[in-house]
């Protein structure tokens, strides 16, 4: 039995069951209605999950299965992106983007490389400014300006 494959198969089956559960909340009419195709899809997902589960249980486990990579960096990156999206309205695009870029550069910098804080800060501010100016003034895209609204719009 391969643990990873078994977990994936269970997730596939679970996704089908979850989808089927959501379909139960939809209004039902006679004949073919808005639930027909989703129901077929849900049962297909459950069936495919079970086929995959049967295969995973049959296959012998591999002793040298891949371990996890640097999940701390992944978690930090996800948190930074989520924080960035949440900060877009209150802080505005230029400020939120500059802060996000600076922090993301730091998080992704390889361990053997130095961390040139001043260069990263300059790059982050410049990139945020160029992107904002290009889309705001070049393409008339009203990106959120936040506290800088009086100066930028």
């Amino acid at each position, binding site marked *: 039995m391969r643990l990873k494959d078994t977990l994936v198969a269970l997730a596939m089956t679970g996704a089908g069951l979850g989808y089927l559960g959501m379909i139960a909340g939809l209004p039902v009419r006679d004949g073919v209605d808005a639930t027909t195709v989703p129901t077929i899809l849900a049962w297909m997902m459950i069936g495919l999950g079970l086929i995959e589960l049967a295969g995973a249980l049959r296959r012998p486990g591999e002793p040298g299965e891949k371990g996890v990579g640097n999940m701390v960096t992944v978690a930090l990156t996800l948190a930074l992106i989520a924080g960035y999206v949440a900060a877009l309205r209150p802080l505005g695009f230029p400020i939120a983007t500059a802060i996000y870029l600076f922090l993301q550069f730091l998080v992704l910098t390889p361990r053997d490389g130095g961390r040139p804080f001043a260069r990263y800060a300059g790059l982050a501010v410049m990139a945020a400014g160029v992107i904002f100016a290009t889309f705001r003034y070049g393409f*008339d895209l009203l990106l959120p300006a936040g506290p800088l609204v009086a100066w930028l719009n």
Partner: protein
Amino acid sequence: MFDLLLQGFGNVFSLQIFMLITVGVAVGIVFGAVPGLTAVMAIALCLPMTYGLGPAAGISLLIALFVGATSGGLISAILLKIPGTPSSIATTFDGGPMMEKGEGAKALGVGIVFSFIGTIISIGALMFIAPTLARVALSFGPHEYFAIAVFSLTLIATLSSGSMAKGIFAGVLGFAVSTVGIAPVDATARFTFGQVELNAGFNILTVLVGMFAVAEIIKVAETARNPLAGSTKAAMVRIKGFGFSMAEFLGQIPNALRSAFLGVSIGILPGIGAGTSNIISYIVAKKRSKTPEQFGKGTIEGVVASETANNAGIGGAMIPLLTLGIPGDAVTAILLGGLMIHGIQPGPMLFLTQGPLVYTIFAALIVSAFMMLLLEFWGLRIFIRLLAIPKHILLPVILVLCAVGAFGLASRVFDIWTILGFGVLGYAFVKAGIPTAPFIIGFILGPMAETSFRRGLQLSRGDYMGFVTNPIAGTFLALAVISIAWQLWGEWRNARRPAAAGSLRLGGEE
């Protein structure tokens, strides 16, 4: 016809239109190259700029953006292994590995030249066979469209590596995600949880950017801090010409012609555009190749198939647009809006009432194709220099551009949350070994399949046999069954001979 075409060239070679085409192709290439920025966005953002221009100038600019953006997707597909547009998904399969082998310049050169060839062939098809082919497509009803969608979805099984169940699951899940929003036919709100933003479902751009670009950024984050992992290979052999030999070019002509034929044929069918044709051409090229085992490991055959087919979709998609007023995909849908803004109503009468303008459009397409070849050739060295930018600097900037692209769709932060959500799903796919491309195909074809299924049943008064007894629909459904059976047979044979099992890796699965 040739008089009208000459007249069209006369219009296009006016200084204003020629400059607009040059700028349009350059901007289009950039939009196509940057993941998250697409041809749709390029045209949508530049559409207001055409208000003050005449119809010929305005439409020429939009067409130049279309041609540039369709081809530009190959740049990020090869350099970053992130398809800039859906039409270059299959380019990543071999372009990426070629890049990793140090043959990035060659992959770019092949992609550029065969993009040009695909575009020119498709323009020829558009000019000479458009009316006849469009009439055939017009005769298709919901039964035929449902069968074509089912057939295309079953090709997912062929796309999958390792487990066919995972491949089909990805396609079914993509289909399921496309059911979010108002249902076709009876307008029931499904899976919206009271969120107004979900009434129209998920936008294809947010799904694509999330599953490919954001997922790639998260994936890179996993290894970015390892020593020497943060930058891509900057060293590359010197480029001579386009980076490939004349013998290699001539050897790819049959592949290119076949892919162009597929690109035009698939592009002409509304709803199935370059996003599907590049993948189908890739599969066909692999099946017909003398060295199928090289596919997915970095062969120019794969790049040629994908890039010829996706650019051949330009002319293909323009056929129903100009002759019937039916947009073949999202890009031609927005082009239709652009034509109507300038008082042009596409349809069968367009060729009779505004012949000179139609041939100006053809001329603009041809000039844009040549401009694309020149600009990408001169820009090739600049694109390669992009490699020197470390990934830990480049990818966060790309994420910001993805966020801008998502926000630009409807000025909603909700769409940026959506790309993050799909990014996490795409990353989970990578970790679980589930291919991403079938998910995208399921998402694109899902609404068409469901709508056609329900309308088809209405037409045949609830009789399911209507799908089988219709000759065209029945043929496609039979092909779908044969496709699944063929794949099952292949899996069974490979299971008996595990060493001989060849794999096709898609969507960055591990």
